[in-house]
């Protein structure tokens, strides 16, 4: 029971981390324009709407 709880907890967190990592470009390339973390973005101002749409 304890084994299953621990495995589920830490493996769940690792799977979550891996899932979040593959969505971020700065994992592979880091430059001046590297996008910030999604959590950080949420707190920032919303991007301006596209003029063409």
């Amino acid at each position, binding site marked *: 029971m304890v084994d299953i709880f*621990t*495995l589920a907890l830490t493996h769940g967190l*690792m*799977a979550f*981390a891996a899932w979040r990592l593959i969505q971020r470009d*700065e994992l592979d390339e*880091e430059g001046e324009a590297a996008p910030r973390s999604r*959590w950080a973005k949420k707190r920032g101002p919303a991007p301006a709407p596209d003029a063409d749409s």
Partner: protein
Amino acid sequence: MLKDLFLLGFIGLLLLLGLKRPFIWVLAYIYIDIVAPQKIGWGLIQSFQLSLITFVAAFAGWLLLDSKVGSRFTFRQALILVLLAWCGMTTLGAEFQDSAWAKWDWVWKALIFAAFLPLTLRTKLRIEAAVTFIVLAVGTIAINGGIKTVFGGGGYGELRLLADENSGMYEGSIISTVAIATIPLALWVARHTSIFPRHWTTWAFTAGLVFACLLIPVGTSARTGLICILVLFVLLLRSVRYRFLYAGAASLAMMAAVPFLPQEYVERMETIVGFRGDQSASTRLVVWQWTIDYAKEHPLGGGFDAYRANSFTYNTVVTTGEGAMRRVEYREVTETARAYHSSYFELLGEQGYFGLAVWLLLQGLGVWHMESLRRRFRRRDGDNRSWQWGLATALQQAHLVYLVGAVFVGIAYQPFLFMLVGLQCALWSYVQRVEGREWRAKLTGKPRPSPAMA
């Protein structure tokens, strides 16, 4: 069986995610190297060469699919390769060929991976991801052991961890040292994470993890673990913001914890001071003396597991009875093939003076590099808030805790140690590259008027 499927499913998921970003395969290897899921499962999972599959995937992924921009080869990585070559040579001439090759089988992988890891850790997020995976992988074993300790499953050599094994990360003294060394890394992740939300839940998990890590030495009754805790306590005094508050709170917590410690644990810890009466501790001193003599005869090292050549007879002090009936006797004990129980003597016996010197240089440079990074960022920012300062500090603390634990346990080639070394190389080379670039940009973009021109 269910566990096997769960673990295989998890590894399959990591391999699948790696198709989008091959770096995930490096994380998968870190996970497998620490947790050793093939030891947790029962049947199915053991039929896969998990370590080999992920190692090949990680290496091929980097070689064929990954960009090499920013990959640097540092001096310490070269030192690792020198140590590897030297170990290969002493294995060829090893006194005990069978066990030497068995040890070589896992040591070369740990060393190659350490030299390779920094090449892949080119970005800040990758460094963070690697630290996060190390923390969670060690956490898998530590949280499990911590919970079992709370429910009273502990005792020296008795705490049943995730796997029915008493070797590698599942050996009591080794996991105690590693769990304590992981604490500063876990705290760094909680403070600087960009993968998990910076939320009270992250801190709650980290607090639980740190508590579990502290319980591992209690659960395994490993004396080394207690020494590691004390070392970490002192090291943290150097880096915490509110020193007096921390010292007071930590001392209070320690005093509050004593009544809850199991009797068996307290008795075993008391033998640290009066180590003469303890066979495990007194054989250590004899084995160390033997190793010094052995190295004089074999200055190039006797190869892996050279300790099997030893055999000695010595006296140990045994006290019987109580009060007036108390008797102290010297009892003669003969033992053969006593392990080194110290990483430093392990290297001296197995790799000779040269191997020991290379290993010491590798470790010493790591401590020094981290110290110089700490100074650099403290000077740059005027405070300790940057992630680089935090990581250099955490890696240094983890490393020092490990090196002190290593005095009493033969863990000179453990993959965990070499992951720390790999991370240090990565952080060092990342800072040289990125900070150097920023500094140059500052110079060319905004030239400062020099006093001579003004």
